[in-house]
């Protein structure tokens, strides 16, 4: 059976337009609802983020307070470092003269004796221990020592020079003069010397480096 719409065409057209308008308006509302849902989700996220942020900020404030309370310990460490550095600077290139005397007593030949001994250290040239690459090289000279003595035969003096050089950090052994006291005695008075390298420095003179 065929249905027959008896409404006039103008009325039917108006109805269709109204339906379309309602559909478009409904679509707009739907989009607005979606935006609303998105908005509420964002609000939730914001609230959560703010809560986390507050928590972290509170924690940071506590940490900051603890750090402030412990700050004197950092100052103490800094003070210690400064004092250590000062000490290292003061003892830079220090030679242990007691060790030097001991070494001399060990190496002096039986057929010789010293009448005088003089030693001095070279003033450090501003090298700062602890700074990278500024430690004194083992070849730089840090001091010198001279001896005057009496030896039996020149061989003794030669032997003396050889043994001097065997000591760690002692370099450039030399003799300024060797003179026989009187003819055919074989007894010589001599003046000799030695230089010290950084290897001869004490442990603290090398900034604690072994």
């Amino acid at each position, binding site marked *: 059976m065929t249905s027959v719409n008896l409404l006039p065409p103008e009325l039917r057209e108006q109805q269709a337009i109204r339906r379309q308008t309602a559909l478009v308006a409904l679509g*707009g509302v739907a989009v607005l609802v979606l935006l609303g849902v998105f908005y509420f989700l964002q609000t939730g996220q914001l609230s959560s983020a703010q809560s986390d942020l507050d928590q972290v900020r509170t924690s940071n404030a506590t940490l900051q307070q603890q750090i402030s309370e412990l700050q004197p310990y950092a100052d103490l460490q800094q003070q*210690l470092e400064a004092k250590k550095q000062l000490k290292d600077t003061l003892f830079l290139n220090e030679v242990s003269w*007691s060790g030097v005397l001991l*070494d001399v007593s060990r190496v002096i030949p039986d057929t010789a004796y010293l009448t005088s001994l003089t030693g001095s250290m070279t003033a450090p040239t501003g090298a700062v221990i602890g700074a990278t690459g500024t430690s004194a090289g083992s070849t730089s000279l840090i001091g010198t020592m001279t001896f005057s003595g009496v030896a039996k035969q020149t061989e003794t003096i030669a032997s003396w020079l050889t043994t001097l050089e065997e000591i760690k950090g002692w370099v450039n052994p030399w003799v300024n003069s060797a003179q026989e006291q009187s003819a055919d005695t074989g007894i010589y008075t001599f003046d000799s010397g030695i230089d010290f390298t950084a290897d001869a420095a004490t442990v603290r003179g090398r900034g604690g480096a072994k």
Partner: protein
Amino acid sequence: MNRRGPLIAAVVSGVIVLLAAVLIVLPKKSEVGKAHDDLLTAQSEEATLQTQLKVLQDAQAAAPVAQKQIDKIQKQIPSTADLPGLFRQLRDVANLSAVDFFSFSPGTPVTDASATFSTLGSGIVVTGSYFSLEEFLHRLETLRRAAKVTSISLAASGTETTGGAGQLQMQLQVEFFTTDTSAGPGSLPGPTQGTAPVILPTVSPTPTESPSPEIPSPTESPSATPGA
């Protein structure tokens, strides 16, 4: 209702949606983004603070040792010239080394160019046997007060006729130090230095040292040995 009704509805809906998005939703989204950024920054700051706190807690744990080390260095490089203490220490060293303490001439303190310490260049002359002098030097080098021997001169002290056979005279130039940058005659009395001592909140005071003079025992071989 005319035929443009749906179009108008679409335009009105679009405008409302656009306005809602621009004026309400997007600012909120931006707020969320900013809050997340702030959170990340705060978390990063927290990590930094945690690290900083850990370092400080380690420093706190090491404070007694650090304080001891500072006290030790303070004794080596005191805050004043402390000549009386120096005299006593040198006298004790001379007595323990069995040398005749002949003379001690402390020089006027000279402030270093860095203005952090002063040096007392001093002359010491002692007489004794070779090994007494060696012992004196060793004790001087390991003195509680920092001492740096910068030059040494050793020669026979007397002859058989003067009763000094076998005796040697040793002349030393020794540097002592103080952190007092205004020391010596004519200077400001008391310690003068730039840094104030650190006051700790919880560190227990270090035990006071026995007043009796104590010479530290040698802990290391001070010199290189032949053939080493």
